[in-house]
């Protein structure tokens, strides 16, 4: 099972990077949260029963974990002991902001946690039915939400804020 999981993750690592960029774009602990998502995926893997595509299952668990990490940060004491150099924040920030193509990440970063989840699924070409299933809302409502979020995103991209 371990080998199978590693192989699947190696083929889908891009998804995890995208989720981490969306939820922890400027967070110095981004790499650490990437690891946490990976660990939680591994822990949940026995429950993956091939009823859906691996990527659908992966998105559901990874999005849940990312949102869970954000929620639980409010309960955690501030972790200031880890040195900033360990994660090389400055270099990371420069890389992100200097690249024009990362504009979309900066725009998505202004959305709420749930909106981020919905829009990444839309941008990754999931259909409304799959999005509704992962998020847990009706298909119609998923469509309504996607439209609203797209309008918001365009506004942010054109004017710099919501």
């Amino acid at each position, binding site marked *: 099972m371990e080998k199978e999981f590693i192989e699947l993750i190696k083929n889908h690592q891009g998804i995890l990077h*995208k989720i981490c960029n969306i939820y922890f774009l400027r967070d110095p602990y981004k790499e650490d949260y990437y690891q946490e998502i990976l660990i939680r995926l591994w822990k949940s893997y026995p429950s993956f029963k091939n009823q859906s595509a691996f990527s659908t299952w992966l998105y559901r668990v990874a999005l849940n974990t990312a949102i869970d990490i954000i929620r639980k940060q409010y309960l955690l004491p501030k972790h200031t002991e880890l040195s900033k150099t360990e994660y090389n924040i400055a270099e990371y920030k420069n890389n992100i902001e200097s690249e024009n193509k990362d504009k979309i990440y900066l725009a998505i970063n202004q959305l709420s946690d749930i909106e981020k989840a919905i829009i990444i699924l839309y941008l990754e070409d999931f259909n409304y039915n799959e999005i509704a299933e992962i998020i847990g809302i009706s298909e119609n409502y998923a469509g309504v939400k996607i439209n609203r979020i797209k309008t918001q995103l365009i506004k942010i991209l054109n004017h710099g804020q919501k």
Partner: protein
Amino acid sequence: MDKNELKSMWRDAHYMKSESNFSKESLEKTMALKHSKVISKSLLDIKLKVLLYTLIFLIYVGLMIYAFVYLSLNLSVNSLVPLALVGVFLLITASSEFVRLFVLTKTADNLSLKDSLLVFCEKLKRIKTTDFIIYIVFFYLLAILIIFNYLAEIRGIKNLSWGNEIVPLPLLVILILMLLSVPWFIKYQNNRRYKKLFLNLKESAHQLNDQPGTIGY
């Protein structure tokens, strides 16, 4: 820019973009961990706090049992009150850290985002309610006990007077009122302490509420 350009912009953003990928070895290493480094550290801090506060509380309870049961120490209300308050403080500190640890270690990753939010809210609500009931029972019992002891010391309700020498009645009334208001004060403090979390949950619930009334947070 219009809505249809979003997808192409997203694709462009990832075209030829190489993120650092994990090797098989580092994946295996990560999978062997319980939590990532920073989360492990935070959890360890809380576990140590829980252990420390529980230990102090148990030592305190042990000392009290030793004093009152083994040595048959007989103290007045004046001396009992501060001792009881210290015990209460230690109990509250230990239990609040324990609750925090419990919430932090529970997950529902396999569910849909909405169901997982519901599970989290339910858990939090249950903990908040249980906590509040425990505090109510504890502090109200303590208040009753103090009144009972006080009446026993002044030898009955008929000797109740404002200028009592043991403990002046106004002081006792203030103390009782303080004890009765402690659970409400703790509730208020917790609401303030976790304000950001509650706001986040409220926002998420609002976003996911396709059938109004299904998520109430």
